[in-house]
């Protein structure tokens, strides 16, 4: 069982700075970690970011609202639908337009499918980080089916530009509901397989349980959101606490960590929250697919988005946590300022706090459990 070193005075040796990244398979992108170590014990971690900075926020000031949507895809490229949706909802709030119910349902379906796809990557790569290669191939295989569904809907597999301000670019194809239900029927048993091969694997539990415990207080203080916060046992999910779109119509639970394998808020809990969330998403999807009403998806799409004045902050529960868009309209068809709150950025900032005193190999596991996407952190 891995153990956390609490008393550093026992070591009395020189500090060594170890550089991990920016090109490293377990940093999940171009993240550089300056790890201050003592032997193999980590005393401090400085995450160095910015290698993927693309001036997203500045770019937005030169693009029309419609043109920003494909750029939001590129922030969180593992949950691009969520980002599209988050931005669209923010602009709609600013415009004050009512969205047809069918569009709301389509968006929920897309968001939940995307959440599953994103969590599949998180779960798979987490397994990869701690040494299990097989689950990764399985999760990626199943994610591929979701991408097929997305391609079926909008033609793109990764960066969709599907959810527009005021609606979606296309209505659902004829066979979409049937195919999605087929996928759900196929997918639900797969979750049990992941559990069998990874979640309840003894070695996996040894590597993750009790490691990198994030207490609820620290999580809240650092502004952690999403599965990272819920893994610490805090019941906070914007879909439930501040329901947007039509989430108030569905029956689902907030997945929270309960310390089943160790303490509440350990790495295993953060991992397991995602597994449970996938099940909850399947639940939502089944309800949404059964309830989806008819209607015109283009009814509320404005011909040209032009906002006189005003500002809005809109929050959205993406696969990684709370995405916020603060938009100040500039009276033109372009926003004057766009600020994006990135959930992965806040989640990453807690790394040094929780990885302190653990070994370097544990840092990999802890980082994997935070499920960061550098495209979103750097923007």
């Amino acid at each position, binding site marked *: 069982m891995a153990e956390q070193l609490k008393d550093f005075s026992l070591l009395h040796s020189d500090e060594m700075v170890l550089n991990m990244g920016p090109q490293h398979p377990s940093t999940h992108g171009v993240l550089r970690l300056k790890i201050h170590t003592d032997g193999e014990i980590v005393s401090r971690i400085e995450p160095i970011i910015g290698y993927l900075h693309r001036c997203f926020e500045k770019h937005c000031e030169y693009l029309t609202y419609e043109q920003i949507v*494909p750029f939001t895809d590129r922030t969180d490229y593992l949950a691009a639908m969520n980002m599209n949706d988050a931005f669209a909802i923010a602009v709609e709030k600013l415009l004050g337009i009512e969205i047809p119910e069918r569009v709301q349902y389509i968006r929920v379906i897309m968001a939940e499918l995307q959440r599953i796809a994103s969590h599949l990557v998180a779960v798979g790569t987490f397994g990869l980080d701690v040494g299990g290669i097989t689950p990764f191939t399985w999760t990626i295989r199943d994610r591929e089916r979701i991408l097929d569904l997305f391609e*079926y809907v909008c033609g*793109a597999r990764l*960066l969709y530009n599907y959810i527009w301000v005021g609606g979606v670019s296309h209505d659902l*194809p004829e066979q979409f509901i049937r195919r999605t239900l087929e996928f759900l029927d196929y997918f639900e048993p797969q979750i049990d397989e992941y559990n069998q091969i990874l979640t*309840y694997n003894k070695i996996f539990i040894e590597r993750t349980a009790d490691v990198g415990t994030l207490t609820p207080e620290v999580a809240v203080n650092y502004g952690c959101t999403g599965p990272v916060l819920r893994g610490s046992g805090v019941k906070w999910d914007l879909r439930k606490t501040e329901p947007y779109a039509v989430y108030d119509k569905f029956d689902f639970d907030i997945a929270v960590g309960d310390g089943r394998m160790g303490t509440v808020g350990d790495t295993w809990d953060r991992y397991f929250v995602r597994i449970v969330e996938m099940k909850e998403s399947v639940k939502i999807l089944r309800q949404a697919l059964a309830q989806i009403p008819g209607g015109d998806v283009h009814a509320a799409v404005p011909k040209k988005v032009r906002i006189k004045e005003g500002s809005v902050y809109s929050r959205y529960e993406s696969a990684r946590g709370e995405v916020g868009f603060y938009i100040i309209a500039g009276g033109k068809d372009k926003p004057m300022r766009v600020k994006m709150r990135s959930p992965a950025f806040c989640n990453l900032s807690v790394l040094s706090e929780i990885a302190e005193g653990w070994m370097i190999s544990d840092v990999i596991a802890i980082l994997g459990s935070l499920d960061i996407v550098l495209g979103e952190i750097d923007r």
Partner: protein
Amino acid sequence: MGEYFKNIYSGLQSFVAGLQLSLHHYHSRKKLVATLQYPHEKWPVEERHIGFDLQDYNVVRSRLHVDINDCIGCNQCMRACPVDCIKIESVKPPKGSEFDPGTTSNGTQKRMLVARFDIDLTECMFCNLCTYPCPEDCIYMVGGPNSAKHQIEYEYSQRDRKDLIFHFANPPEEEILAAGGADYLAKKKGLPVPEKPAAGVAAKPKSTEPKINYTPVNAITDRMTRSLAKKAFTAAVRAGKTPSETAASVKQALEEAGKYTSELDAVMESIGKADLMTQAVQAPETKLTKPDQGGLDIKLLNDLTDRMTRSIAKKAFMAAVREGKDARAVADSIQSALQAANKFSDEVKSVLAKLQSAGGASAATESDQKPASVALNIKVLNGISDKMTRGLAKKTFMAARREGKIPAEIVTEVKQTLEDAGKLTPEYAKIIDSLQEGT
């Protein structure tokens, strides 16, 4: 001790469970395999036909393609593109040109020749935003629902990066020339744009053409009637009718509309007598000269704080000045105008006093101060054909004049500047010299 063995047991158990699963997957590998043996197998294209009419939906993200024969050059896709990877240049045939750009497959008459339609696929981010606004459905992503238009194309790799810039429009030079694109061609080749037969000149001949003389028709007071009459009048004149015939046709048109009254008899008579066309009067060369304000400065009135008052005062001021009144008379007329409007106040009084006192003084100084250079006509410099040189010369001229230099000084200075810039030719020198001759 029990814990120890329990750990070993659970470790073995999960190990066996994992292996069992792997074995299961091994057995059903045919069913579960996700990998496509790419060079040997390709994406099943038919299955991806999503079952919509291709006019309505364009859901495939592949290479962008343009059916250039259908493109009307509306630039909407260019404007929609967030990364500016589409570049369109079109040549619009001048008015009266015989050139026919053709029609699209939807039957829309094209109005211009698309001379350049480049899509840089190294920049394209496949967001599909350009395909939605196209009025002719001529830009689309290849394959999928568009398979009737274009075969699906997944592999569009190129040996050279340059080849990823797709040039869709390649009209032959003759065609561009026929469409009146001589300037465009020259610009494209980096040659100096041939001196235009001056757009201004092209527009001007109108003034020398005989114009229709509307004076008699304008005598009609009723607006509706006048407009009707004018229409009929124009038509008749264009048809080359004689004055009396024109009058008859105007009368007829008005009668049909039930607008003809006996009062209009006089008008018809005058039409019958009038010259239908006026030979264009030589356009007056001189611009409207500013009315001599007698040295009075309207700006003094800006001291008035109330907007309404100021505007009334200025109006009265201008009217008075135009009548050629002197400072005192101007002040008086402003005062009376303001009093009539009930806006006269102490403030106005003081401003008017200032106006009166300034009038005499400035009138005296101005005539002394303003150098004779006012008489120098900057338009003379328009004779300089090179744009850059002309600009430079004019700039220097204005600067020198502002400094209050005398004509001879200005001329030498302009010459000097041009010489410094290496632009002075004997021809230009002559033009600049002629500045002085004008005075």
